[in-house]
């Protein structure tokens, strides 16, 4: 207390201040790899607690006791240097980057650990690695970067999130996304980009195995992503300004038929079916169905010339001995390439830490985000803008002709208003008008962060109590103007609706940690309790007929007539007791033991079902430290560590009231009896409750090895894991004739097994520095058991399809595609007649030329329920697994090159072996009855006679052709140049004249190149839930962004 101040700064900066003086040493520390000065290097007198840090120019000055003093220079990410002072008074040092900084501290749940002591599967990503990725959220930046983590963009719409899966899917219906924990506070949802600005991030840790995630027990069953934001340091303010901007354009555009191709196709269809031609084609008859010009290209009509991106970040860190701060502000804006879609975000952050009375530290980590999201309808096959861009007829016009304008004026609508000039379009309206008149958007304010108090007692005990909040208020706006497009596309009254959603989540963490060492034995004991509370409330109202359509009147009070008012609320809570023991002996034998007891409001408390206990244990063995290993004299092997872990984590992510029966009455639960129509109130069952619900358990075993070779230049990490989800919380699969709402139950078991490999090679020695790294994840997912009543669960019927495309069944992956195999298309009656079973009977007696030939695979099970062989009939028994929505493997690799001030970072990413269900085909064939446009290329779309195509049936043929079969699937593998950045750092010599410590200019190309066989616009499609996986429903396609930026450091 009298002479030393210990300041723990996350990111492991140890700073010591000395006060005894006899000899002054000064010098400069530079980065050996590029000659740039290194600020913030710790300069410490060995054997004492005295030291200093280098300033912005890398200079230091320190007073030592005598000439036999030894100075040590240390800096995170660099190898330490030890220099005897001798008689020198100027000591200049160049530090070499440490490829594997073993003393790096990583953040684990409710504490930190040395990376070298880790026993679980934890991957960490530093801010520097993400620095060159201009992205709205870190989830996108993580794509392909960490083995075992798959990130799928939910399309390219501005502000759209991602689907992140850590080690596969453990659940069919439940949440499969990881838990995000920001500065110790769990996030309410997984849309991280709406809460955390990537520029504020210091480090990211991914807890993959149960042993690591166990400490977040109740919510960690799908892995945990811990985000630590930048904290201040006790030095002069450091200011960073970063600005980038660019363009955002589609990688692909829909390849649809032009007007003439469309007509030719319609003629085939109507010839085949005998139905009357639609009017728009009928009227062309005099011209022998010729059409001048290409017709309307609806994609072009509904897209902007280009989308734009802008981002500006400001951040400042600094502080004094007792007080540190990090603050920042950011602005991000994305106007998508489809009209009207946009996203805009403002962020503010203030992290502070204040040390007082020697033993206490208090502070806050707070952020405020305000974003505005304006979406379009996409990922929606029946009415979405992207879908309609494919489907609308090229014979339809965007704008009204003179006659239609006159008609509009006669109907009493102002034709000088643009809204009244859009042409009427069949099949769901003019999409250009739809997006241009769409005034629906939402704004959200997010206040997120914590206030903490920490006490350090007797050097060994740390007590931390923090109170965190995730408080959100979302405002939903909608305004629908009065317009007239035709007598069926019309809105007589301007209508406004407003909705508020309030979400207040509170968490209190109280943790006590005890550190002790005896000789080579090191212990850390941690115990704590956490409480979380989730509150939600919403309010919605709508009204119509206001005096003006000016935005000033987009309020309920402006309107003449209230239409509706609704509101609801819900709440839930979690509480947990947790404990952890870390033990290491000589940094050679490592052991971690976790235990946690969780209680939730989502299960019954009466009989203890609300509570679950989840233990885990993990161990590590640094084999390279053993004497026998060292006696091998394998100098090229620097470090070998073997790890193993076992653990259990709980999951309770289901609706709040699934365990108790609920009656509900909504605004529609009234019935009028009698001619007087008197309303009687109705109450009906809202759910199908299951009082026996309890915790789902995810159990995982992990084996890992970390190997460093050739002076740590080669680093390898390999992991093998088995993750079993048992007592799976699932919706009981019931036939529709049961008629009940879905019931949740603990049934089933799902296994994920995988191998993760990561390898990097670094060379930071010369003027030309480079590193090459890659990772690959192989994952298999298997449904082991679906409970006592079902051996398979089929997914929901998808919209107009009338069948479900995915299935879960024992021994197969979740969401496997399930349907008929196709042998080809019957060309002639003879081929149909020749398709016989063993008994000489026709297998497809009702087929006609142009219909699919389906494979006869199996018949009805025999009396013992055993499968049988082909039975000569095509029916449900012939359905089989025909594809998987899960890739066999996902991979990513980076190549970073640096020469003098130039840096070239390339990042590639991809997946292999998955299939995608193309909903587009519905409208190309099955749903086609004359109104929808087609993908261009007639010969590929329709069988028109013998030997025309073996891939597609004839248009308008038997609907049996369009049952779930291989025909719907397309290979979803892809390889993508995700991010290529070229940057130039101006040399220090130039910068020092302008008082800058750094200036970087960079250009980035995102999604520059994609290699894929996929037939839709983009193979990267939103994931969907377990029985709805891998379906392309006309997603807003991923964009190609070209960005230029500049970054200043002061």
């Amino acid at each position, binding site marked *: 207390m009298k002479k030393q101040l210990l300041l723990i700064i996350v990111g492991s900066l140890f700073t010591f201040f000395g006060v005894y003086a006899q000899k002054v040493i000064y010098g400069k520390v530079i980065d050996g790899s590029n000659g740039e000065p290194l600020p913030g290097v710790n300069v410490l007198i060995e054997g004492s607690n005295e030291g200093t840090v280098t300033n912005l120019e890398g200079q230091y000055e320190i007073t030592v006791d005598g000439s036999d003093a030894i100075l040590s220079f240390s800096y995170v990410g660099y190898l330490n240097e030890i220099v005897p002072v001798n008689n020198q008074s100027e000591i200049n040092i160049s530090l070499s980057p440490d490829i594997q900084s073993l003393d790096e501290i990583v953040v684990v749940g409710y504490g930190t650990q040395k990376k070298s002591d880790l026993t679980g599967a934890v991957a960490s990503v530093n801010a520097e690695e993400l620095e060159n990725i201009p992205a709205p959220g870190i989830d996108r930046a993580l794509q392909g970067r960490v083995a075992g983590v798959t990130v799928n963009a939910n399309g390219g719409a501005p502000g759209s999130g991602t689907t992140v899966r850590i080690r596969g899917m453990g659940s069919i219906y439940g949440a499969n996304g990881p838990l995000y924990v920001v500065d110790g506070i769990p996030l309410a949802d997984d849309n991280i980009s709406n809460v955390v600005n990537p520029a504020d991030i210091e480090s990211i840790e991914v807890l993959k195995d149960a042993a690591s995630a166990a400490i977040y027990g109740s919510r960690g069953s799908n892995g945990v992503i811990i985000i630590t934001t930048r904290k201040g340091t006790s030095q002069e303010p450091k200011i960073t300004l970063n600005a980038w901007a660019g363009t955002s354009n589609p990688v692909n555009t829909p390849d649809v038929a032009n007007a003439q191709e469309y007509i030719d196709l319609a003629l085939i269809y109507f010839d085949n079916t005998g139905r009357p031609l*639609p009017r728009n084609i009928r009227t062309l008859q005099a011209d022998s169905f010729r059409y001048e010009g290409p017709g309307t290209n609806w994609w072009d009509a509904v897209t902007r010339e280009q989308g734009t991106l802008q981002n500006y970040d400001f951040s400042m860190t600094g502080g004094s001995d007792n007080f540190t701060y990090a603050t920042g502000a950011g602005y991000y804006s994305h106007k998508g390439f489809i009209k009207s879609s946009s996203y805009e975000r403002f962020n503010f952050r203030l992290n502070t830490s204040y040390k007082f009375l020697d033993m206490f530290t208090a502070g806050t980590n707070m952020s405020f985000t305000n974003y505005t999201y304006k979406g379009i309808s996409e990922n929606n096959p029946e009415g979405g803008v992207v879908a309609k861009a494919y489907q609308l007829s090229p014979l339809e016009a965007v704008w009204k002709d003179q006659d239609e304008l006159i008609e509009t004026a006669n109907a009493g609508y102002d034709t000088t208003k643009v809204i009244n000039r859009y042409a009427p379009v*069949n*099949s769901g309206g003019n999409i250009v008008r739809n997006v241009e008149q769409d005034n629906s958007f939402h704004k959200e304010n997010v206040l997120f962060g914590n206030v903490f108090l920490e006490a350090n007692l007797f050097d060994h*005990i740390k007590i931390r109590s923090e109170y965190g909040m995730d408080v959100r208020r979302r405002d939903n706006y909608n305004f629908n103007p009065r317009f007239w497009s035709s007598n*069926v596309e*019309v809105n*007589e009254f301007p209508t406004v609706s407003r909705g508020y959603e309030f979400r207040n989540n509170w968490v209190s963490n*109280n*943790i*006590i940690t005890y550190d002790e060492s005896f000789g080579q034995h090191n212990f850390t004991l941690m*115990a704590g309790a956490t*409480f979380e509370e989730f509150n939600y409330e919403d309010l919605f109202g709508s009204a119509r007929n206001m005096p003006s359509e000016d935005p000033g009147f987009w309020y309920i009070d402006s309107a003449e007539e209230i*239409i509706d008012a609704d509101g*609801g609320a819900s*709440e839930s*809570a979690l*509480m947990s007791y947790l404990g952890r023991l870390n033990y290491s002996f000589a940094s050679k034998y490592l052991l971690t033991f976790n235990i946690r007891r969780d209680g939730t*409001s989502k299960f019954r*408390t009466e009989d203890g079902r*609300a509570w679950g206990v989840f233990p885990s244990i993990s161990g590590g063995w640094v084999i390279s430290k053993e004497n026998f290993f060292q006696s091998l004299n394998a100098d090229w092997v620097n470090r070998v560590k073997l790890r193993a872990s076992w653990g259990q984590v709980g999951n309770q992510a289901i609706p709040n009231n699934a365990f*108790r*029966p*609920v*009656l*509900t009455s909504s*605004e*529609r*639960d009234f019935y*009028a*009896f*009698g001619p*007087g129509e*008197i309303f009687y*109130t*109705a*109450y009906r069952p*809202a759910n199908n409750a299951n009082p026996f619900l309890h915790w789902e358990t995810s159990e995982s075993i992990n084996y890992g090895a970390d190997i460093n070779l050739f002076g740590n230049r080669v680093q390898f990490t390999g992991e093998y894991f088995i993750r079993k989800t048992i007592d799976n919380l699932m919706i009981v699969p019931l*036939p*529709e*004739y*049961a*008629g*009940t*709402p879905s019931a949740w139950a603990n049934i089933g078991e799902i296994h994920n097994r995988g191998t993760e490999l990561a390898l990097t090679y670094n060379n930071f020695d010369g003027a030309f520095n480079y590193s090459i790294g890659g990772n690959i994840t192989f994952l298999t997912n298997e449904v082991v058991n679906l409970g006592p*009543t*079902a051996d398979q669960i*089929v997914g929901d*019927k998808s919209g*107009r399809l*009338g*069948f479900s495309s995915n*299935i879960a069944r024992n021994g197969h992956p979740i969401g496997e595609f*399930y349907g008929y195999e196709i042998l080809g298309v019957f060309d002639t009656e003879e081929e149909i007649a020749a398709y016989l079973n063993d008994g000489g009977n026709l297998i497809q007696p*009702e087929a006609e030329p142009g219909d699919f030939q389906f494979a006869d695979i199996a018949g009805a099970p025999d009396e013992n329920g055993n499968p049988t062989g082909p039975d000569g009939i095509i029916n449900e028994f012939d359905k089989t697994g025909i594809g998987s929505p899960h890739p066999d493997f996902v991979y990513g690799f980076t190549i970073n090159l640096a020469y003098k001030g130039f840096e070239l970072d390339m990042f590639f990413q991809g997946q292999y072996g998955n299939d995608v269900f193309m909903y587009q085909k519905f409208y190309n064939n*099955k*749903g086609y009855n*004359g*109104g929808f446009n087609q993908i261009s290329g007639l010969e590929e779309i329709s069988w028109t006679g013998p030997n025309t195509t073996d891939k597609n049936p004839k248009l308008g043929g038997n*609907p049996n052709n369009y*049952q779930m079969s291989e025909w719907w699937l397309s290979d979803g593998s892809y390889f993508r140049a995700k991010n290529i950045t070229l940057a130039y750092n101006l040399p220090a010599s130039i910068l020092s004249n302008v008082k800058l410590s750094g200036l970087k200019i960079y250009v980035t190309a995102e999604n520059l190149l994609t290699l894929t066989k996929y037939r839709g616009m983009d193979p990267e499609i939103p994931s969907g839930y377990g029985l709805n996986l891998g379906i392309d429903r006309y997603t807003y396609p991923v964009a190609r962004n070209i960005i230029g930026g500049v970054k200043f450091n002061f």
Partner: protein
Amino acid sequence: MKKTILLLAISIVFATSCSEEFIERPLLVDLSAENFDPETAVTACYNIMVNSVTNAYPNQRWFNWQTYIQGDAISDDAFKSGADCDDAPAIAEMERFMLDPANVQVGNFWRTQYQHIYYFNWTLAGLAVNESIPEELKNQYRSEVLFLRSLAYFWLNRAFGGVVPVFELVGDEVEIKRATEDEIWAQLEKDLQYAIDILPEKSEYPLADLGRATRGSARALLAKIYLHQLKYQASLDQTQAIIQSGEYELENDYRNLWKRGLPGDDRNEHGIESVFEITFAPAIDERNPADWARSQRGRQPELGGWGLINPTLDLLDTYEEGDPRIISTFLFDGDTMPKVDSLGASLGITVGGQPCNIHMMLNYKVHRAQNEYSELTDNMAENFIVIRFADVLLMYAEAANELGRTSEALDKLNMVRERARNSSRVDPNRTYINFNGPIGGNYTGPERGYLTYDWNTVDESTILPDITITDKIELRHAIWKERRTEFALEGERFFDLTRQTKVEPNRVGQVMRAFAEKWDIDWKGGSFKDGKHEVFPIPGSEIDLVGLEFLPQNNGY
């Protein structure tokens, strides 16, 4: 001091945490199931038919009425039509008899009816254990729900020919073997017999409770079920009891049947001919739109509809010359209706421009409210009459004829014809009827006018003379023809034909193929296959789930 700090610290960690109350959270907004209330539960059973307020499909109320659409759209009475020719492709497939087990329309119908049956079973289960109400009231409620459940099963059974017998809440044993058509009928007979004993007659209800199941409605449904099984004596007994009860009469004028009226006006809801009627009442925000009517109205905004169901000329030609029911059944292209705006000014809607309307006609029975409402919205709140007294009379006639009681059959048949004959032949709500003139607009049918004779010069004394046929088969056909015209576009035609197929093999196929040939519309009726298309396919997704051994597919699918 140090000890104090340490204790304080430890207490911070644990003191806040002792109580389990922290994770006991109240149910917000909704009620706990302990609050089961018989009255609101039974009301929910009626409402579910109107609003289909289920958790899974909150906004798909229109599914309730697809059975109704199917009955006409796939028959020789009407084309499917819609927003355009490509609207509702699943109904289009049905209309073409290109049905497969994945057909969405069939699947929706199956699911919706079974969701309703769940509510009925849930209410019955709740009533069984409820001790808060008198036994008499409990039996009354039970009977009402049994009637509703029987009606749902009746719709299902005639469409699929044997369905899954879910007559109580499905427990752990979810795999239930499909019952035969006769087994389902047997259960419904039992339930309806029970209800007949308990339920009051229509006149015994106070006015404010009209719309609840009555003894008459239970008898009428039972009579229909008997007729489906060719149990003529039993059917006749039930219809006879209804007639003798004196509870019902035919409306004087056929056109008054669908009169909606303004509150306080001369309204005709739950009128004298109505045996069972489902109420749609106007509510803000379209909380219970009458989708059965809305789906069929013209697509002009003034008509507020989706344009489904366009009658065929074949149906029009079935009517005898001058039959007054024509003007209450058809709306012709070019008709002008005097819609009145909110200030009372006449706007005058000229009917036309319906996309994909092949014979350019609409179902007028769903358009009547427009004439009687001053302010028009999509929700015109037309009640749906499930069974009316004319049906009871014609069921009686059919059963009597089959039993050889010819004069009774003729008597009841002629009652229906007499009412039709005496109905108005003019429509004050349409200022001009185009059906005499040349066909204009987008008409694409045969080169002819709507009517093949001049409506205005028809000798009124020759209209719809009494039938005097005594030959059993001829009279049977006369009764069937009367059913087609009397109940035209009320959703019955296809199911009437499939019922009649049990009397005369392959009748529905013969009718459909004859239609296709006569009008050269092969895609509509030409592909009908006897022995297959009389019933719909069992939804394939259900078979995926429980297997063919429990849920065998219908023949040919």
